[in-house]
């Protein structure tokens, strides 16, 4: 997309230049990445992908008055704490997902005993805390287990045994797909049929690829289905033509984020921090996710979530 803009003359008479860095989703590396970008003099950052890494880098961008927009960070505190006025995102925050997961488990699946697990990370734990709060507030289901697992541990057999002995009918997991696929694999190998509900960190095709047959039947919340949005169709088509593969999980969010950012710069007439953030908060932009703008805290207005289930190896939207 940036190439399209540049071939049609760039914006405000300047070409958009991309500096691409990989923080490998680790907070300690994200700070290095951020410092590198700041010293290279970037105007705007699109990213990062993981909430934990983003949180670590945010302070550096804030001090340098750089606007950062993430296509995928859903940790509520990033916007709700109010500490980072320079932060925006094109994805709804975790409390929305947690609410959806709990309501789905209680009202649609009608389970009575629920275990909540998380990966101790900013994203997973944040989500799990909300799920726990909503479960405690409800008298229709009981929270039987609340645990954090160590990401990257050699195996999870002890936790899996614990889930089994807690009698949970459903597990709500806050975290990313590597841990989710390990846990679900070990649960199924032990012959457990427990329902597994997770978040958009798991609603990724890599999860299905890695967990294989064990992924079948897993529920995960993810951004609203946009497959009928003409802009989305066009964007995905363009990606396929350029790179010859299906785009990744947060492609449309990232695409929308760049649309919003470039539009705001255009409207602001410069890359000035105050002008661009004002434009982001006032202008509505047509994106593949629908018409979106940003509220005071930096959350996108108009981007939502719904529930998906793995059926025959693909995520299918469920209307529940």
């Amino acid at each position, binding site marked *: 997309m940036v190439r399209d803009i540049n071939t049609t003359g760039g914006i405000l008479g300047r070409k958009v230049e991309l500096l691409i860095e990989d923080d490998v989703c680790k907070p300690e590396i994200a700070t290095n990445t951020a410092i590198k970008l700041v010293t290279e003099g970037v105007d705007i950052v699109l990213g990062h992908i993981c909430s934990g890494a983003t949180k670590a880098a945010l302070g550096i961008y804030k001090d340098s008055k750089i606007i950062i927009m993430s296509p995928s960070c859903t940790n509520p505190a990033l916007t709700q704490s109010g500490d980072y006025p320079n932060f925006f995102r094109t994805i709804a925050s975790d409390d929305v997902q947690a609410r959806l997961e709990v309501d789905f488990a209680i009202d649609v699946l009608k389970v009575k005993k629920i275990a909540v697990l998380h990966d101790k990370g900013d994203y997973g734990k944040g989500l799990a805390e909300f799920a726990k709060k909503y479960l405690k507030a409800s008298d229709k289901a009981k929270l039987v287990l609340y*645990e954090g697992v160590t990401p990257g541990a*050699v195996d999870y*057999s002890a*936790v899996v045994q*614990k889930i089994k002995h807690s009698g949970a009918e459903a597990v709500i997991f806050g975290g990313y*797909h590597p841990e989710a696929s390990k846990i679900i*694999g*070990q649960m199924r190998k032990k012959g457990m049929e427990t329902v597994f509900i997770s978040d958009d960190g798991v609603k990724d095709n890599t999860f299905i690829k890695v967990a294989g047959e064990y992924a079948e039947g897993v529920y995960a919340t993810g951004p609203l289905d946009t497959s009928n949005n003409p802009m989305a169709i066009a964007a995905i088509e363009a990606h396929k033509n350029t790179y010859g593969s299906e785009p990744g999980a947060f492609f449309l969010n990232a695409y929308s984020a760049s649309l919003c950012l470039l539009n705001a710069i255009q409207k602001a007439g410069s890359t000035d921090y105050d002008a661009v953030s004002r434009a982001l908060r006032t202008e509505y932009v047509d994106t593949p996710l629908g018409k979106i703008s940003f509220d005071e805290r930096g959350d996108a207005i108009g981007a939502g979530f719904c529930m998906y289930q793995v059926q025959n190896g693909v995520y299918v939207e469920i209307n529940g």
Partner: protein
Amino acid sequence: MEYFLELVLGGLTRGSIYALIALGYTMVYGIIQLINFAHGEIYMIGAFTALIFTSVLTLLGFNEIAVIVLASLSAVIYSSAYGYTVEKIAYKPLRHASRLSPLISAIGMSIFLQNYVLLAQTSDFLPFPNLIPEFEFIKQYRHIISSSEIVILITTSTAMILLTFLIKFTRTGKAMRATAQDRNMAMLVGINVNRVISITFIIGSALAALGGVLIASHVGQINFYIGFIAGIKAFTAAVLGGIGSIPGAVLGALVLGLTESFATGYISSDYEDVFAFGLLVLILIFRPAGILGRATAKKV
């Protein structure tokens, strides 16, 4: 009671994997007093090699048993070659340098190997096929122990027995013990110390590769970073048991695996690592050389 048994078996399985890796740390330390931080990466490379070979062999239409055996064998050979090369490139030139230099070199090697696999393969998690079929006779007990756990326990015990035999009863083993006791003296009586060191690295790497293949098949996924945590835990196990001592490494690994399993099972998995490392601190306070380690007097 059943819950207790499940936790014990889970802990033993995890401990066995730690043990396979910890042996490499402890053997190398025993002989050249070096903590080989690149050892976890050898374990990771073993898992990757097995994945590549499994895919290729399955495509070529080999049967299940042949795939398991050939893939594990290739992982072992490939990792051993890495272990051997790492020693030759990164440690041998520093043999007479101060003890800190090879240590830093080891950390460098670890970072290099991680990034090498990251670039050569992928940063994504890759699915690892379940190499071990579900045994029929175990089906009704699979909620307690799965067939891959049984295979891990059996393979590890067999490897330990073979290793003990090698060290206690063969000429090579004798040379290794002599080198561990006094390198200069061993050289004087005609032992080719460089060869002994190479053999030590090869054996350690082979065991780590075996651990890598077993655990990858058990949990069904790998990525370039798995060696780091497994390596740190195995290193902890080696220190816990007394670094330099072979039975100590195995004991330390099993104790660590069981502690983690019980901490998760009866308290909370949030504190899994707290208990594991808390135990390490406690043991080191009362037995600074580790459970089976011998305190050596140093001439001042």
